């Protein structure tokens, strides 16, 4: 009797469009809310969605409704003590409910809070940021091949024969050689039959016809219907499918002067960069290098958690990185990004050395090199040396971070979409 329909398998995201419209409309407010939400928040949370709230005033839809004043009379249930004629003071904060939900859209300073999905959040988060130097596109890693159609060839395996093409070729050849058609032959044969059936003498004509039939037969036999020459095969070629790949080097100073707080800030910066690269490359490898007076390549856990002490020789890390690049990441196949975090301490004599390694051997290999200095004090010699490098190299960026709240702005600053100057 009743129709029972299982709709559970139908799409459940019917409202996706409306939701997207909503986000689109309040883009400006959402963006502001997102950057507010980021401040001081642990960056690892960013990877999941984010709660965002925007002022209710902006999202309200106005309708005409009554304001305060005049006479209102409302009926309420649950009288406990009143009798007719009682008077009492107005309760604070609006007199009695009533009037339905009239004031819902009017006042109310509360925020309209909702959650963004990870994807939406990242879109807002990284909006108008771009990876500088994506020029290396022609050097994308070549790993996969895919076969694509590429017209037709005259040789191949029987399974690939293109029947339409082959027959079309055969027809063209027959036309070119002006081969008679079967229908032509049939026609003449029929004519002959009618002639033979009629009693009149048509000897000459009959002989003519016979001759013609004979000629047509011969020609038909001599020009084959299909010739190996006509055969065409579907052609497929294997094309290299570019897969973009990047390697990200995280270089961090773990000397005694880098305390937990500073390391935490460095970590957040690295994760930001990682997330950002993830959006641009299918495949990303991360190499962690930590250093004090000497550098080692470590795994992620050790990188962030183990503590070392002692002095600082930045160049050790740069040397190690160079070595790793030569050994494992051929710069013609890999897009190389480097993020270096340090508190700026370095052996005095080493800083000049670092600048030299950078500009001579590392920067030519890299797509981008970002240096962040996490310190509250005056910049030290490493900073000044790097400043010189910065003047010469466009794909070298450096910024200083004072507190957690700076991380995102600094990150934005470094990766701000630049007017397309480089070809």
């Amino acid at each position, binding site marked *: *009797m*009743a129709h*029972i*329909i*299982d*709709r*559970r398998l*139908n799409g*459940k*995201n*019917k*409202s996706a*469009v*409306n*939701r*997207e*419209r*909503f986000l*689109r*409309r309040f883009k400006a407010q959402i963006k502001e809310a997102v950057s507010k939400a980021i401040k001081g928040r642990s960056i690892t949370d960013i990877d999941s969605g984010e709660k965002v709230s925007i002022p209710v*005033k*902006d999202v309200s*839809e*106005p*309708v*005409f*409704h009554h*304001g*305060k*004043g*005049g*006479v*209102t*009379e*409302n*009926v*309420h*249930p*649950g*009288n*406990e003590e*009143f*009798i*007719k*004629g*009682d*008077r009492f*003071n*107005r309760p604070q904060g609006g*007199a*009695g*409910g*009533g009037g*339905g939900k009239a004031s819902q859209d*009017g*006042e109310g300073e509360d925020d*309209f*809070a*909702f*959650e963004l999905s990870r994807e939406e959040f990242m879109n807002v988060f990284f909006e108008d940021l771009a990876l500088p130097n994506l020029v290396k596109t022609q050097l994308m890693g070549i790993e996969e091949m895919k076969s694509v159609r590429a017209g037709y060839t005259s040789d191949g395996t029987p399974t690939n024969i293109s029947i339409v093409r082959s027959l079309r070729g055969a027809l063209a050849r027959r036309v070119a050689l002006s081969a008679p058609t079967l229908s032509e032959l049939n026609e003449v044969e029929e004519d002959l039959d009618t002639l033979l059936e009629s009693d009149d003498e048509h000897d000459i004509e009959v002989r003519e016809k016979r001759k013609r039939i004979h000629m047509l037969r011969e020609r038909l036999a001599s020009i084959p219907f299909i010739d190996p020459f006509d055969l065409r095969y579907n052609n497929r070629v294997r094309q290299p499918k570019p897969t973009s790949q990047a390697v990200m080097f995280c270089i961090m100073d773990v000397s005694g002067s880098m305390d937990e707080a500073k390391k935490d800030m460095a970590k957040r910066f690295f994760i930001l960069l990682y997330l950002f690269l993830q959006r641009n490359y299918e495949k990303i490898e991360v190499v962690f290098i930590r250093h004090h007076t000497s550098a080692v390549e470590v795994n992620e856990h050790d990188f962030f958690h183990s503590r070392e002490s002692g002095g600082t020789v930045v160049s050790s890390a740069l040397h190690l990185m160079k070595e790793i690049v030569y050994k494992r990441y051929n710069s013609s196949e890999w897009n190389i990004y480097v993020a270096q975090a340090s508190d700026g301490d370095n052996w005095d004599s080493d800083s000049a050395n670092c600048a030299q390694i950078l500009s001579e051997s590392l920067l030519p290999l890299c797509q981008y090199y970002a240096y962040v200095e996490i310190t509250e004090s005056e910049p030290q010699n490493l900073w000044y040396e790097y400043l010189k490098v910065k003047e010469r190299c466009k794909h070298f960026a450096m910024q200083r971070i004072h507190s957690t709240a700076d991380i995102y702005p600094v990150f934005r600053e470094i990766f701000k979409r630049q007017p397309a100057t480089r070809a």
Partner: protein
Amino acid sequence: MTPISTGSEWTFDLLDEYERAIREIAVKEYGLDVYPVQLEVISAEQMMDAYSSVGMPVNYHHWSFGKHFVSTEKSYKRGHMGLAYEIVINSNPCIAYLMEENSMTMQALVIAHAAFGHNSFFKGNYLFRTWTDASAIIDYLVFAKSYIARCEERYGIDAVEELLDSCHALMNYGVDRYKRPQKLSLAKEQARQEEREQYLQMQVNDLWRTIPRPAKSGGEHEPVRFPSEPQENLLYFIEKSAPLLEPWQREIVRIVRKVAQYFYPQRQTQVMNEGWATFWHYTIMNRLFAKGLVTDGAMMEFLQSHTNVVYQPPVTARWYNGINPYALGFAMYQDIKRICEEPTEEDRLWFPDIAGSNWQQTLDFAMKNFKDESFVSQYLSPKLIRDFRFFSIRDDDRDSTLLVSAIHDDEGYRDVRQKLSEQYNLGSREPNIQVWSVNVRGDRGLTLRHTMHRRRPLEAGSAHEVLKHVARLWGFDVRLESVNEAGEVEQTFEVKHLPEQLSLQSA
């Protein structure tokens, strides 16, 4: 008889069996007249989708539905709010949604409540019969959705969105309250739409027709009023008379107007409609139980959720939020049944015509011929006023204190009843705003008039915002005057139309 099921899990076969059993009771025993039923099983996510497009299975796209969805989703995920058990659509066949998370008992409750309660109300009540066309609404929405989508492609999402914003602001003023609307039909709509588009555009010149009319007897320049009489349907007036709208814009105004009209009866019959459905799920479930078709356990589960639904917190409770329409409606129908079956002296005095009559006929009559306002004023009995301990409070801004104007005593019954009825009167709940005049010979400005009721003013902030929307639709300056009972203008809002006014967002 053995129970249909004992566990709490539902299956499609069980749904079918319950539906049969309930139909047996509702249609055969109690004679409910219903549209064919279509039960659709959906997931919680789909329920939220349905929520945000005002319960309709198809609707056009607009950010406000997205906003709705986003906030529903949030409160649901946080557990602030359970989803409604059911959504039912006034269509033919009547579509009722069943959520897959519900237990078998709850599904039976929903079937009784929505697929038979609401369904018979939609089919029977005079407002729905007059104002909505159950067989055409889905088709019309399909048309509206594709039309608006095409407009978006053609004129840009922003242009359409702005227009819809403006129309939505006036949605409550897009209904004909007295004139019966025409039937909707997809085929007709589509066929007429293009013709209408061109024709309407020619019609607009009506405003500034250049051929002079023959002068009236006086011959003097009596300013011609336009419109000749005040118009209550603002959207209709705009659709027909706004000078600068493009044909497609008129069509969209029309669509919003039609949708508003479709929902108009629902806004006027909350208590009646919910009460009716609740009354029937209660009656039907009890009948199922009496026939031995449901178990004790299922009955306990049902009663638990039923009592939650019909709970009316007293005004002193912190979570008091007005009168619960389910509670009031359910109580009233139960009370009418009681008056029919076991009338007291008081009932015979108050309701001489129904006391002792056949309850099924009386209820059927009550359901068919009233809306909330008249239903309350007709059937609210002194006993219910006592049970609910209703009292009314008069808030006069000229008094420094509130006055308790009536309570549940002999003197107050009629008073309370009349005031409660007034409370459900949409006409006095919403400000009465009509099109007053257009300055045809001057700046083409449009004047709206708000006739104040009991000196209640408009909320200034929102009125100003809405006027901006009106100005966008009208294309010229717009004024709104609040007129008090003596006919004097008390308050005036004015919005100048700026041609370059692109965004209405004040920020």
